[in-house]
């Protein structure tokens, strides 16, 4: 099967702390991969490395087969949903959509997404006047509006109401069926259970587990993910 992202021997340290200690990891096409791990495990750093926001000390990253070192154009193949939806306060959502479309060169799905999340009445209001939940919906809109083959979602459920959450999940399922690949970080285990084709568990900059949900449960002999993860942490004296 084809890999959309290939990470080899990725090392990154901030000052004296080593955050990623030589990670080898591939993400396959048309799958939903969930990256799990406690705070400080290196998952954000890994994602940012893929996006080119963090510059690794060594190792290589390939996105759709091309090495990303020193590149920026490859990012047109990745959509990113940041954890915190904080936008220029005096722009409207519509202007923001236009800006991103300007930068990426595409907003094929905007209208459909506005309807799906009921954003219509909010598009012409300044972003500083929108509620946190609405802002997160705008955030989702920005991440899904283009046709990039890889979508990275950092805590996508932050501040979403149940209705929007259901819509997001169906959106993810739909995009996956259209052949897109996902990289998701989350703390919501239910979401992992429902969506994940594959789980990657990071701890102290190393990969502790990589496999399907059922493989995770089997390996640690538990019947839910939370307990399985607790087991990993306990055996490593982290919790």
């Amino acid at each position, binding site marked *: 099967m084809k890999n959309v992202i290939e990470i080899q021997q990725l090392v990154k340290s*901030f000052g004296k702390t080593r955050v990623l200690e030589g990670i080898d990891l591939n993400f396959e096409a048309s799958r939903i991969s969930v990256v799990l791990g406690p705070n400080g495990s290196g998952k954000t750093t890994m994602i*940012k490395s893929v*996006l*080119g*926001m*963090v*510059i690794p000390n060594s190792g290589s990253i390939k996105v759709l087969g091309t090495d990303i070192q020193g590149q*920026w*154009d*490859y*990012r*047109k193949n*990745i959509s*990113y949903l*940041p954890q*915190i*939806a*904080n*936008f*220029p*306060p*005096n*722009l409207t959502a519509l*202007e923001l959509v236009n*800006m*991103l479309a*300007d*930068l*990426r060169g595409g907003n094929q799905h905007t209208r459909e997404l506005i309807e799906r999340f009921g954003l219509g009445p909010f598009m012409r209001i*300044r972003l500083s006047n929108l509620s946190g939940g609405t802002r997160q919906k705008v955030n989702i809109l*920005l991440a899904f509006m283009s046709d990039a083959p890889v979508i*990275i979602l950092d805590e996508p459920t932050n501040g979403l109401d149940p209705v929007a959450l259901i819509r997001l999940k169906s959106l993810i399922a739909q995009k996956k069926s259209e052949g897109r690949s996902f990289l998701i970080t989350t703390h919501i285990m239910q979401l992992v259970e429902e969506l994940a084709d594959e789980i990657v568990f990071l701890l102290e900059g190393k990969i502790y587990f990589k496999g399907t949900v059922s493989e995770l449960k089997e390996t640690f002999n538990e019947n839910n993910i939370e307990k399985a993860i607790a087991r990993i942490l306990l055996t490593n004296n982290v919790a």
Partner: protein
Amino acid sequence: MYKILKYAFYDLIRSKWSYVYFAFYLLISGSLLFLTGDISKVIISLMNIVLVLVPLIASIFGVMYYYNSREFTELLLAQPIRRSNIFLGQYFGLSVSLSSSLFLGIGIPFLFFGIFRSAEIWNFFILILTGVLLTFIFSALAFLVALQNENKLKGFGFMLFIWLFLAIIYDGLFLLSLIVFKDYPLESLSISMSMFNPIDLSRVLILLKLDISALMGYTGAVFRKFFGNDNGLILSSLVLLMWVIIPVAFIARVSKRKDF
């Protein structure tokens, strides 16, 4: 870069601070003009305000804007554009919006007062030009300081210190060195010392235009030669421009290597 600049400008120009900043200059220059009616005198008063306030406001806004848009910057960093374009776009958006407030706030009352029919048009032009250049210089320094300091408080403190240093402390040291070394020929020293501080340089540029060149000339031949002719004027302007270009080049450089 232009795309980022455009949206950053739209965002900033609609902020209430832009309006406050604009209204402040409108009020000050309007009331000075209508109270005194003497354009040349108003330009001198405005010069005193512009030289202190423009760097301060550009410093504060620059640092504040950088820190407040950090999360959005992360979103931009994930887009298919060069890093340096993001920061330069944001920086120019900020400088252009601050400059617009300054330019319109001071310009509108002068326009009503008939600046285009006045002999002071060049002095007015120099005032605006130095104000705009100072905005660009101090916004660039602020961006650079914020880029280098993850800690907001540290960034703010450091930038305020830079402002305080260039606006006041530097001149104190300058004066002190003139007094201490007064037995030596000091003309070259004082010319170069005023080159190294954009606020001093702007002040000298305005004063030269405002006909105080003869007062300057009083100090000696080298001085008069330098500041009294067009070459001095051109060189001073170039140095001010370097004060923009160098920090901006550093912004581009630092942003390339930084982890976000």
